[in-house]
């Protein structure tokens, strides 16, 4: 069976949509014009996934202004809108969530997360959410004296978000946890006790939640953390193969879990050769002993123009077929 291909986060907007949103900012286009284009483009992203043989469908999250915002806006005790911070080492920014009170789920509007009505007929729906550890790490905590308490409360709130999205037909939840492997914003890298807290928070999101969960790491080397991640009660783990050295990985005793290979680089415009992708995946598979593979980009493709993002997805699709043949 050929590896499944999946979107791993926010897909880039087209030049047309970019023009419209800019015109909207300058009061030269109405929001309804933007919405019409958003809807059309979301349909196109879904159609592209169909044509490339995806198993789980995402709406591309084209309306998301940053990777945290829909979650930020769904939480009580969290303010935003006064401060922008850089998204890791990219030239993109997010509105920093400011934790000002006890955090819990507020009025969760699934429409802020997903265009479920455009995914009609798609039985397997995927959404990408920031994991609780990453969300808390990228927030400014002005309330909790004990970081662990913040982490638990965010996890519990995310569990409610998951439930709401399940009701909208989402079956696969990707929890993105780049902060587990990459912390350029901190003086010292997290220690094992913090990893334990983070893994505990992920367990809290997953516990008794419907659906399938994948924890995606990116922008950093996940070799050392992989065994811990595979121990989580989730269906799969995502690895950035542009940051993780395959030769440093250990055999995972033929894990039955899915390994989501970030094998096209969302931060570089060069479109990877399908043969190289298939070869890299094969080396990974041989080294780790994993056979349940998913091909994806290492993170949100929003860091490259849409045309290139689409070419990268096509390369993944071709690579998946090449991988199957060998």
């Amino acid at each position: 069976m050929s590896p499944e291909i999946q979107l791993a986060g926010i897909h880039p907007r087209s030049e047309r949509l970019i023009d419209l949103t800019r015109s909207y900012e300058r009061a030269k286009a109405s929001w309804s014009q933007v919405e019409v284009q958003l809807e059309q483009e979301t349909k196109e992203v879904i159609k592209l996934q169909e044509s490339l043989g995806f198993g789980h469908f995402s709406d591309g999250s084209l309306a998301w202004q940053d990777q945290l915002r829909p979650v930020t806006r769904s939480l009580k005790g969290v303010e935003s809108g006064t401060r922008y911070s850089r998204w890791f080492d990219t030239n993109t920014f997010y509105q920093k969530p400011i934790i000002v009170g006890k955090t819990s789920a507020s009025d969760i509007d699934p429409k802020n997360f997903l265009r479920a009505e455009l995914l009609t007929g798609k039985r397997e729906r995927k959404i990408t959410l920031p994991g609780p550890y990453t969300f808390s790490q990228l927030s400014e905590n002005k309330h909790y004296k004990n970081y662990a308490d913040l982490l638990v409360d965010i996890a519990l709130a995310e569990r409610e978000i998951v439930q709401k999205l399940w009701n909208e037909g989402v079956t696969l939840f990707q929890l993105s946890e780049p902060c587990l492997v990459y912390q350029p914003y901190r003086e010292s890298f997290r220690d094992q006790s913090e990893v334990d807290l983070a893994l505990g928070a992920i367990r809290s999101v997953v516990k008794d939640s419907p659906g399938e969960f994948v924890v995606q790491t990116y922008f950093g080397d996940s070799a050392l953390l992989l065994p811990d991640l595979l121990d989580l009660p989730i269906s799969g783990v995502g690895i950035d193969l542009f940051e993780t050295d395959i030769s440093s990985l250990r055999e995972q005793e033929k894990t039955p879990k899915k390994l989501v290979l970030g094998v096209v680089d969302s931060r570089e415009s060069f479109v990877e050769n399908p043969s190289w992708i298939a070869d890299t995946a094969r080396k990974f598979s041989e080294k780790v002993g994993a056979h349940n593979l998913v091909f994806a980009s290492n993170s949100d493709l929003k860091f490259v123009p849409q045309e290139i993002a689409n070419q990268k997805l096509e390369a993944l699709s071709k690579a998946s077929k090449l991988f199957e043949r060998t």
Partner: protein
Amino acid sequence: MTKLFPVQEIGSLAKPKWRTKGLRQRLSSQDLFEAEEWAEKLGIQDFHDRAKSLLNTGDDKERVKAVLELSTLYGLRLFETTGVDNDGVGGEQQRVEMYEHVIKAVQGMNLLGHVHSFDNKYFNKGVAESRISRKHSVYVPEFLDVKKYAHRAVKVPITGPYTLVDWSFSGYYIQKQHASSPKTRKIDAKREFLLDIVEQIIRPEIRDLVNAGATWIQIDEPAVTTHPEPQEMELFVEAWNETVKGFNCKFSDHTCYPSEIGYKVLAEYAPKLDKCDQLALEFANRDTSRLGLDEDSREGYSDLNHFVNAGYKGEFGLGVAHVHDFTGNVSSGAGQSVGRDLIESPELVRDRLLFATKIVGDPGKIWANPDCGLRTRTWDVAFAKLANITKGAELAREAYQ
């Protein structure tokens, strides 16, 4: 400069509609209505003669040149009218934006399309498709117009080599690497690309600017603090020192929106930057919007301690006004929240300057400025913010003296 707390701009202003339209097509007198209003406000007395000449120009090249020159004049006068002591290049009216403007002048680079920056803001990202070289001058034509009209000191902001490389796709440079690890290939490509940008693009540009009379060049390096790893910081220092080597003019660095530890790391390396006379930094974005000289009220400025403790001896360009959308609360007396804008009160600016003085020690080392360029704000808002910065600087002078 003997005046305490002089005020400077950092870079860009929004482009007026007539400026944007005038680059594409002929303008009508109606298009210049807004320009006429601002002409009165900014004291541009020969507006009608200039407008007449602009409207009568049939030649596209002449029109574009006239529009760019006029918008530069407007930017300079806006800064002057609000009391700014250093007018920069009039709000970078002759540049598309800080990245694309340079890339268009680079042989071997191609702009691939827009990528998301934040909210509904994007930038056109380039890729190196072959070894790079300079096609034409990037900043000199603008500087020559500025020289004609500036009544005050001029600082020329340029985009730094580290940022240009960091915001580009490496393309050619990454494909020619042979290391087996993708990570090593990326690092090797970045260094080679960076040193080429310094030698082929930035140094020739600085040489031309200095020869044309520039005495202060601000190197914008917002990307540097996004990679606080030692290897990257050493690379930044190497590129900076190579960039300024042998030139006889004032240099300053502008770095904004760092990661949480970004300024702490920059502080460690700042003393290693040759000829870096000033660091212009963003603080208002992370500060509270309430009055006060206590550490809690001025929490946004705590990172200044790192630079002082690390032994940086130069000046500081202190970000005292926010330049992005603001939808939070403002305490009494600290300013006004208007729509998506915060207009800081002079008293808030004063408190920020005085608090920074407590940390830096020498008030003669502190300039007041917005966090970054004001291109995302309207001219009305930019005017109000800058006017309040100059009033706040005056209040700080009074309080200090």
